[in-house]
């Protein structure tokens, strides 16, 4: 007989899994294919959404980075002018005085040839040659002698012939053009013929893909900026950079290429972060499914685990067994998730790119870039969340007592006793989340962490609430449906450890839908209200054409007087918009003037300076938008520094105005002040205010007639037209959010279906007893559907308060910290009602199959099966 004294030591191998245990586990999973596959699908969907969003984000970022690198080349620094353009003479003077050997003037503009959007890159090819030897040295970059000769010829043609350009082979192939062909190029608002001087072979032209390379003279000509360049790219050492910066004339500024790239990348940071958070929500819901499935798998096998414990299986072995099962599900789910993620990502990248184009800057991403790190992150997160979700059930399995084999109801009793503690824990977690909000300052990441804590805390409280709800509605269901109704309500209470989980998973997903719905609804209403308040003119005339060297084109100065002279016109306002540099990065500058003397349509938040408008008109004050004020923690009375044509100028902030037009911030100055400081008398838009008795249609016709003959061409839009267009763009930018929301609901639906299937499977014996005692198939179907209805309605009702809290947090914390926008929460009753209906519908649909299956089952067989 073996001595027991060394028993504890002998349990060193407590986690070793005998083959029979692994076989039992494997067969359990294969014998419950619905449960297993629904769980795998849940994980796969979660992983797929995370990977798809990450791939789309990464592809967009990569597309942006590549285009910046392509255009900037190896330049380390750039000289830019506050006014947008640098004269040729200034460039020449700088080159000579500062002995800049590695410098080239640059013009960069969007160009469209056929169906392809490219970037026109104009360089001084001679000056740029030492900076980009691989691209332009001809023989140096060519694969063979023939190609080298071709490149040299192309270079000569680019320099010698006006209107010529060079394309990369990939672009030329896509366009179906070859060297020597003439193409129609759309630049700004005009179209002109250009000749393809050469097509660079793949080996040479890889760095040129997406670009149309031209000599600076051609670029100046086709963009209408004769005598001006947009910027100067340079390769400098730190010492040289310091020398050049000190010697720059007023209105010019030297910055590193990285600074400029970062400033642009910063613009879309919040957008990318929000998408990532939405995808994490889907993963969280996926984690719920796994938790639900594995908990059920443990509870269902509790007597079996008790038997195993009776035979000497250790707690460690049971723990390892459940974790191993979880890992297997996670691995399969993650693998399928990768495949689905790549497929979804391909569609998502188009939505991401379109949104960036709509609200930030022009970006062309032609294909999804398979970033291995994104895939690894998705897989790692999927497996991590799954294992985390499986940890609870694994510990539960390890807690199995040998006596559980005898007393099956013990588990449920213990679960019931735990509910108040679980709810108390949930309350604590919610409290922690709410506490984190003020403590986390302006951090977006901690804001999301607080939001997730509130979600997790609320879901911990839900089982207790569901039990109370089921208990409270038992008399009502009894009165309505008799004993079937009472059984349905009591069935939920009796199996609260499972039904509570299913309801919590569904409620969280529906709450996310409600919360995001409230956020979008509030945002939409605020934007609509803001547009109505801000767009104070009745008709707008604007030109979006390029005015050369990065400046927008201008409307004729006399147009304002012509418009004012039209019968029915009460006032005309004028505006000029451009990007400007501040000490805190780039922002939009809007210069306004009005024939009435003071612009209208502002809604201020916080204090405003005394004598606001007179001091603003005098150029002492600037108005800044909420996003800028929030991000830089500035308010009325603080200062803002702007880089003007006359160097850095400081303005006092007169007021902070509400603005949903740009999340990178807007500053507003009076037009005359702007015209002097930036040496730009141009006007890009005019607003026409009609007299109260004016015939809107006839004035609009007259304005259109005036605008028809303008060059560059200008578009005439009514106030209503602009609002409709703006709301269209708003809705388009939220398409991706809607898609992610739908995916989260999809994951939740899989979760509730999985939970219901598992519950019905477990209750098969109870149903068989009911059938054996005379319950008809129809009554059984009714019983199950009543039960799932009650669970769905409970989930919907619980989702309402949680959804409102989530919506509030999204608006007050996430939106504010991401974009700096404030807005009042507006709850459309339809959003809440549709949330409840969605939960109910999902539960009913998920309950259909289990109801049909249970009703079909032969009672004798179910009674026989243990």
């Amino acid at each position, binding site marked *: 007989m*073996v001595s027991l004294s060394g028993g*504890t030591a002998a349990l060193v191998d407590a986690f070793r899994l005998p083959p029979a245990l692994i076989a039992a*586990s494997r067969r359990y999973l294969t014998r419950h294919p619905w449960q297993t596959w629904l769980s795998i699908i849940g994980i796969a969907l979660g992983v797929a959404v995370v990977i798809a969003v990450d791939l789309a984000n990464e592809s967009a970022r990569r597309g942006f980075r590549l285009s910046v690198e392509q255009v900037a080349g190896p330049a380390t620094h750039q000289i830019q002018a506050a006014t947008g353009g640098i004269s040729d003479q200034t460039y020449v003077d700088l080159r000579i005085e500062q002995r800049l050997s590695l410098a080239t003037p640059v013009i960069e503009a969007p160009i469209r040839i056929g169906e392809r959007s490219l970037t026109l890159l104009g360089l001084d090819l001679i000056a740029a040659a030492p900076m980009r030897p691989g691209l332009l040295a001809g023989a140096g970059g060519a694969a063979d002698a023939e190609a080298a000769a071709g490149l040299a010829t192309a270079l000569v043609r680019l320099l010698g012939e006006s209107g010529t350009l060079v394309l990369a082979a990939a672009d030329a192939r896509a366009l179906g053009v070859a060297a020597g062909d003439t193409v129609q190029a759309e630049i700004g608002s005009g179209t002109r013929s250009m000749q393809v001087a050469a097509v660079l072979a793949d080996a040479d032209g890889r760095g040129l893909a997406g670009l149309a390379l031209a000599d600076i003279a051609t670029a100046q000509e086709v963009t209408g900026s004769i005598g001006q360049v947009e910027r100067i790219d340079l390769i400098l050492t730190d010492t040289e950079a310091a020398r050049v910066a000190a010697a720059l004339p007023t209105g010019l500024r030297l910055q590193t290429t990285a600074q400029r790239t970062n400033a642009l990348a910063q613009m879309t940071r919040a957008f990318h972060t929000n998408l990532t958070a939405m995808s994490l929500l889907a993963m969280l819901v996926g984690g719920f499914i796994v938790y639900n499935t594995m908990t059920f798998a443990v509870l269902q096998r509790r007597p079996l685990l008790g038997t195993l414990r009776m035979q*000497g299986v250790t707690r460690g072995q049971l723990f390892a067994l459940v974790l191993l099962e979880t890992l297997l599900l996670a691995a399969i789910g993650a693998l399928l998730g990768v495949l689905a993620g790549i497929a979804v990502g391909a569609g998502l990248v188009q939505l991401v790119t379109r949104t960036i184009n709509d609200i930030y800057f022009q970006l062309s991403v032609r294909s999804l870039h398979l970033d291995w790190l994104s895939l690894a992150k998705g897989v790692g997160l999927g497996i991590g969340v799954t294992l985390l979700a499986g940890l609870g059930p694994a510990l539960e399995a390890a807690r199995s007592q040998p006596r559980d084999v005898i007393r099956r109801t013990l588990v449920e009793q213990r679960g019931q006793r735990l509910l108040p503690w679980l709810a108390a824990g949930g309350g604590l977690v919610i409290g922690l989340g709410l506490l984190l909000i003020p403590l986390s300052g302006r951090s977006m990441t901690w804001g999301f962490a607080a939001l997730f804590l509130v979600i997790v805390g609320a879901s911990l409280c839900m089982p207790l609430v569901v039990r109370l709800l089921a208990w409270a509605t038992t008399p009502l269901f009894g009165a309505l449906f008799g004993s079937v109704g009472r059984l349905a309500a009591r069935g939920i209470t009796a199996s609260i450890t499972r039904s509570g989980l299913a309801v919590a998973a569904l409620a969280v997903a529906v709450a996310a839908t409600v919360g995001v719905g409230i956020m979008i609804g509030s945002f939409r209403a605020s934007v609509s209200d803001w547009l109505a308040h801000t767009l104070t003119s009745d008709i707008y005339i604007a030109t979006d054409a390029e005015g050369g060297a990065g400046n927008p084109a201008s409307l004729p100065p006399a147009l304002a007087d012509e418009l004012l002279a039209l019968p029915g016109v009460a006032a005309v306002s004028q505006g000029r918009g451009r990007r400007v540099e501040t000490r805190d990065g780039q922002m939009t500058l809007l210069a306004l003037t009005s024939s009435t003397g003071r612009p209208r349509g502002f809604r201020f938040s916080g204090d405003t300076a005394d004598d606001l408008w007179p001091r603003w008109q005098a150029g002492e004050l600037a108005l800044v938008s909420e996003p800028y004020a929030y991000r830089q923690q500035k308010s009325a009375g603080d200062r803002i520094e702007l880089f003007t044509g006359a160097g850095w100028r400081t303005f006092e902030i007169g007021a902070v105005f509400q603005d949903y037009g740009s999340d990178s911030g807007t500053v507003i100055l009076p037009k005359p002040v702007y015209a002097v400081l930036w040496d730009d008398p141009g006007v890009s838009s005019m607003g026409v205010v009609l007299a109260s008795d004016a015939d809107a249609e006839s004035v609009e016709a007259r304005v259109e007639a005036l605008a028809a003959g303008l060059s560059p061409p200008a578009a005439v839009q009514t106030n209503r037209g602009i609002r409709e267009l703006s709301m269209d763009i708003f809705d388009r930018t939220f398409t991706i959010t809607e898609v992610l929301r739908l995916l989260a609901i999809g994951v939740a639906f899989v979760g509730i279906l999985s939970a219901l299937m598992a519950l019905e499977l477990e209750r098969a014996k109870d149903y068989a007893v009911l059938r054996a005692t005379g319950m008809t198939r129809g009554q059984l179907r009714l019983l199950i559907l009543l039960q799932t209805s009650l669970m769905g309605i409970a989930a919907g009702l619980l989702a309402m308060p949680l959804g409102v809290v989530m919506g509030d947090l999204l608006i007050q914390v996430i939106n504010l910290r991401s974009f700096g926008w404030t807005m009042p929460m507006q709850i459309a009753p339809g959003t809440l009602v549709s949330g409840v209906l969605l939960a109910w519908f999902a539960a009913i649909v998920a309950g259909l199959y289990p109801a049909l299956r249970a009703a079909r089952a032969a009672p004798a067989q179910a009674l026989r099966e243990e």
Partner: protein
Amino acid sequence: MDDATVPALAVEGLGKSYAEGRARRVVLEDVAFKVAPGECIALLGRSGSGKSTLLNLLAGIDRPDTGDVRIAGQSVVTMGEPALTLLRRRHIGFIYQFFNLIPTLTVAENLALPLELNGVPAARRRERIAALLGKVGLDGREGAFPDQLSGGEQQRVAIARAIIHDPALVLADEPTGNLDAQTGHRVLELLSHLFRDEGHTLILVTHSREVSAIADRVFAVDGGRLTERTEALSW
């Protein structure tokens, strides 16, 4: 200590009570008996008499309020959870009323599990499984799953599983309680012969006089107390 002189099971002053509201219900009181190696003992009693509680205390899956249980000389009462697990794994076999076979394992795999847990090599496992299946009359059913067997067959597998690792003590809780009379009788016969042949110590909990008839000694459990029945018993 020499194994031959140590009782397979020794129970002294065992007491157990449960809280019922504010009162306590005494289930077992001052229970004491000894079982020699190879002996078969029946604990006979009506439902609710405390016999299942006694079985749980003997197996170490429940803790007594007073007294001690010693299996092969080792006190179960003072053992920690890991040691109890090892005790069950190596020295105790269980036979249940509802068989409790692992439904996802075949007959052979169900039998292999206790051996695998005890680290018995594969070749010896195969030999032992084949031998025991022959003894319980289930030759050729190695690959069958429990739900493919009749109740009597399942209980025969459960019996084989209980003794396959050669435990010091086998505890059987109403082993025929879930079988029809004829099948129950056959299982009982098998149990009796098998345990005599293999020399295992068996504690049998039952409410049936017929079942208790296979025991060497019979103890009646009534009102929480244990008394030995002295009337002659025939095999």
